[in-house]
C-alpha cells in the first residue's frame, strides 16, 4: 500500500544505482532532512537543542566514522575517543594559533590531523587482527590521553589543561545560539553522510567489505590489504576527528582531555554495534539509542511526578539501559538498522504478506 513500487521502472544503470532506488525512500529521507532543517528549529526548545539534538548529531557523525572502520572494513577500534581528541585539539591549535583561521577550515584541518595519526595507528592492522587490533588501538587512546594532559603546547599552555574557544562564526554568520549550532552540525552531518554513503557504495567501499568478509580471498582477487585497510583508517579517523572538533567547539565550548576518555570510545563502539554494523542509518539509530535513552530514563520519574531519590533514579537508569542493550542484542544481533530494514521489507508487502 504505502510502499507501492508499481510503475517505478529503471531504464538506465544510473537510475538503478541511485542511493535510494525506491521513490518512497528518497522522498522520506528528503522530507526528514527538510523537517530537521526547517521545522525542528521552530518546534524544539532550547534544552532539546543543547542537550539532546546537538550531541546526538555530533555523536552520530562520530559513530558513522567508526562504522566505516568497524562495520565496513571489519577492523575493531577502541581508539575512537583518541581520534576525536586529536580532531578537537588539532582544530583548536589551528584556530587559536593562526589568526583569522575560518572555523570550517580549522575543523577540517583537525580532521586531517586525526587522519595522519589514524593511519599511523592503523599500520599494526596489517599484521594483527581482531581483538589484538582492538588492544593496539587502545594504545592510541592512552597515548592521546597522556599527550594532551602532559604536553602543554597542545593546550596552548593553559594552566589547567582545559581549553575553550569563543566567537565562532562561518562567513560572518555567528554560531552562537542553540539553533545556529544545531543547523551547523546538521549541515556537517548531512554532507558527511552523503559522502560516506557514496564512498561505501563505490569501489573503495567494496574493497573494504571484501577485506572485512575474508581478507585472504580479497587479496587473491587483487585487493591490496595495505591500501584497503589504511584507507579505511584514514577515512574513519577523518570523520571521527571532525566530529571531535564539533564536539569540542560547538557542543562543549570548553573541554579537557577527559571529554574524550576511553569511555567515549566504548560508547561509540556500542553505538555502532547496537545501531547496526555496516549501515549508515545504523549509526544514527545507535547514537539515538545511547544518547537519548539515558536522558529519557533519567528524566522520566520527574516527568511522571514520581518522587524518587536521585541516586536511585540514576541506578535505575543504568539497570534499565543495560537490560535494553541485552534485549536488543538478543532480539536482533544485527542492530536496530536491521530491525528497520525488516520493517521496511514488511511494509513493501503489506497488507498481503507471504
Amino acid at each position: 500500500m504505502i510502499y507501492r513500487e508499481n510503475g517505478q521502472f529503471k531504464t538506465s544503470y544510473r537510475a538503478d544505482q541511485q542511493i535510494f532506488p525506491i521513490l518512497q525512500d528518497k522522498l522520506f529521507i528528503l522530507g526528514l532532512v527538510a523537517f530537521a532543517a526547517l521545522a525542528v528549529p521552530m518546534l524544539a526548545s532550547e534544552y532539546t537543542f543543547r542537550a539532546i539534538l546537538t550531541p546526538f548529531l555530533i555523536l552520530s557523525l562520530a559513530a558513522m566514522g567508526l562504522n566505516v572502520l568497524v562495520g565496513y572494513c571489519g577492523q575493531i577500534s577502541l581508539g575512537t575517543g583518541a581520534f576525536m581528541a586529536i580532531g578537537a585539539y588539532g582544530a583548536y591549535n589551528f584556530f587559536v594559533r593562526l589568526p583569522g583561521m575560518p572555523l570550517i577550515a580549522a575543523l577540517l584541518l583537525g580532521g586531517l590531523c586525526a587522519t595522519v595519526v589514524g593511519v599511523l595507528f592503523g599500520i599494526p592492522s596489517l599484521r594483527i587482527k581482531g581483538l589484538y587490533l582492538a588492544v593496539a588501538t587502545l594504545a592510541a587512546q592512552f597515548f592521546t590521553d597522556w599527550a594532551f594532559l602532559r604536553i602543554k603546547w597542545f593546550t596552548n599552555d593553559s594552566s589547567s589543561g582545559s581549553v575553550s574557544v569563543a566567537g565562532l562564526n562561518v562567513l560572518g554568520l555567528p554560531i552562537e545560539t542553540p539553533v545556529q549550532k544545531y543547523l551547523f552540525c546538521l549541515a556537517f552531518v548531512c554532507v558527511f553522510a552523503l559522502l560516506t554513503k557514496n564512498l561505501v557504495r563505490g569501489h573503495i567501499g567494496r574493497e573494504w567489505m571484501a577485506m572485512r568478509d575474508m581478507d585472504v580471498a580479497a587479496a587473491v582477487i587483487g585487493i591490496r590489504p595495505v591500501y584497503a585497510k589504511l584507507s579505511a583508517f584514514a577515512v574513519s579517523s577523518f570523520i571521527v576527528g571532525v566530529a571531535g572538533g564539533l564536539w569540542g567547539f560547538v557542543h562543549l565550548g570548553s573541554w579537557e582531555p577527559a571529554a574524550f576518555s576511553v569511555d567515549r570510545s566504548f560508547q561509540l563502539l556500542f553505538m555502532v554495534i547496537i545501531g547496526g554494523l555496516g549501515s549508515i542509518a545504523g549509526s544514527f539509530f545507535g547514537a539515538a539509542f545511547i544518547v537519548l535513552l539515558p536522558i529519557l530514563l533519567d528524566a522520566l520519574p520527574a516527568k511522571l511526578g514520581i518522587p524518587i531519590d536521585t541516586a536511585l533514579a540514576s541506578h535505575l537508569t543504568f539497570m534499565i539501559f543495560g537490560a535494553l542493550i541485552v534485549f536488543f542484542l538478543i532480539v536482533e544481533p544485527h542492530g536496530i538498522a536491521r530491525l528497520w530494514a525488516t520493517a521496511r521489507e514488511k511494509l513493501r508487502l503489506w497488507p498481503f504478506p507471504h
Partner: protein
Amino acid sequence: MNLKQIVLTTAALAAAFSATLSTPAVAADAKEQFFPLLVYRTGPYAPNGTPWANGKQDYIKMINARDGGINGVKITFEECETGYATDKGVECYERLKGKAASLIDPQATGITFALTDKAPGDKIPLVTMGYGLAASQDGGVFKWNFPLMGSYWTAADILIQHLGKKEGGLDKLKGKKIALVYHDSPFGKEPMPLLEERSKTHGFELVKIPVTAPGVEQKSAWLQVRQQRPDYVLLWGWGVMNSTALKEAQATGYPRDKMYGVWWAGAEPDVKDVGDGAKGYNALALNTSGQQPKVIQDILKLVHDKGQGTGPKDEVGSVLYTRGVIIQAMAIEAVRRAQERFGKGKVMTGEQVRWGLENLALDDKKLAALGLTGVIRPVSTSCLDHMGSTWARVQTWDGAKWGFSSDWYQADEAILKPMVKAAADKYAGDKKLTRRTPADCQS
C-alpha cells in the same frame, strides 16, 4: 520480534520522547524561589558528593520549615545527577536552568569550566565555594562567577604559608622539596601556577606527580614519591583518590604528618576507611564540623527529627555536609540581600541574585543569626572581589576525628592579586571581553 511488537515499541519510545520534548520551560510559581541542585550520588566521587548534596537539601528544608522560606518566598529545588562528568553536568544545567534558576553550584571544577562560558548568556550566577576557576575571583571580568571563600590558589598559598611557619620562616623552605600529588584534571592542575610562583620566590623544588582520574590506581605515583623523597606532599585529591592515597602512603611508609590535603581532601570519607593509618594526616579546613553549631541543631530538630532528613542522621554535621549547608546558606542569603534591594517577599531572578552575591556582607552578627558562629569567618564580597574572604585553617586527623592544628591563615594578597588580575586579563583577551565599567558595578 514481529512487526507489531516493533511498531508498538517504537510508538512507546516516540511517545515518551515527545513527552520530554514538548514540556515547556516551567515558569516559576509566583512565590517560589527555585534552586537547581547539581549533585553526584553515584560513581567514584559519591562518598564525598553525597553529604555535600544532603547538606544543601537539608538546609533548604530547614529554612522552609523554620522561616517559611525567604521573607515568605518558599524555596523549591530539584536535583540532577551529574556523576561528576562534564557532559552530564552540562545536560543537567540545560535541563534545570529553564525553571527560573536562582544560581548554580556545579559541585565540580570541570563542569564549572564548561558553564563559565554559558552562564553570562543565560544570566545565571555560578557559585563555586572553595573550587572552580581561581581567576574568577576577579569580578571585573567574571561577572557571573563567585568562588566564595577561596580558590585553589588561596588554598595552595595557605598551605605553603603553613609549611613555612612549621619550618620557622618562609625562607627556610629554600632547598626543600615539595611534591604535589594531584588529580589529573583541571581540578588538580589549578593550584600549579601559584605553587610555581611560590617555588620561584622561596627556592623550594616543586615536584608534580599526577594521578589518573578517578585515582583508584596510584602505585606508580607513590613509587615516584618514594624515589623523590619530598619533604612534604600536597594532596590535591577528591573522592576515592584521597583514601587510596593515604593507603598507598601507608604502604610506602611515607609519614602521614608530612602530608597536607586541600580542603576537598579533608573530610571523614577520606580518612575513615584508613582509620589509624591516616593518623597525623593534615588538611585544610574551610569550615568546622560537628553537630554543635546552631544551624546544624536546627536542621536536626526541624528536619531530621521530623523524619524528613535527606541522608543518615549521624552524617549530619560532617565536614562536607557542613560545607553544603554553608553553600546553601550563602545562596539563600544572596537571595535575601537581593530582596532588600529589589523588593522583599518577591521571587528573585538570576540577575538579581547575582547582585545579591556581589553585595554579600555577612559579618559576625549576621553569621550568629544564621547559626554559623565559629563555623566560618565573615564574608563580604564586592564588585571586584567575588571571593569575599580567604580565611582557612589546617586540621589534623587523630585517628577518630578532625581537630584544628593551626591558627587562621589568609592568602597573601601581594602574590595572589597580580596573578588573579593577569589570569583574568588573559581570559578576557582570549574571549574578547572588556572589563566591567564602574557604572556596571552599580547595576
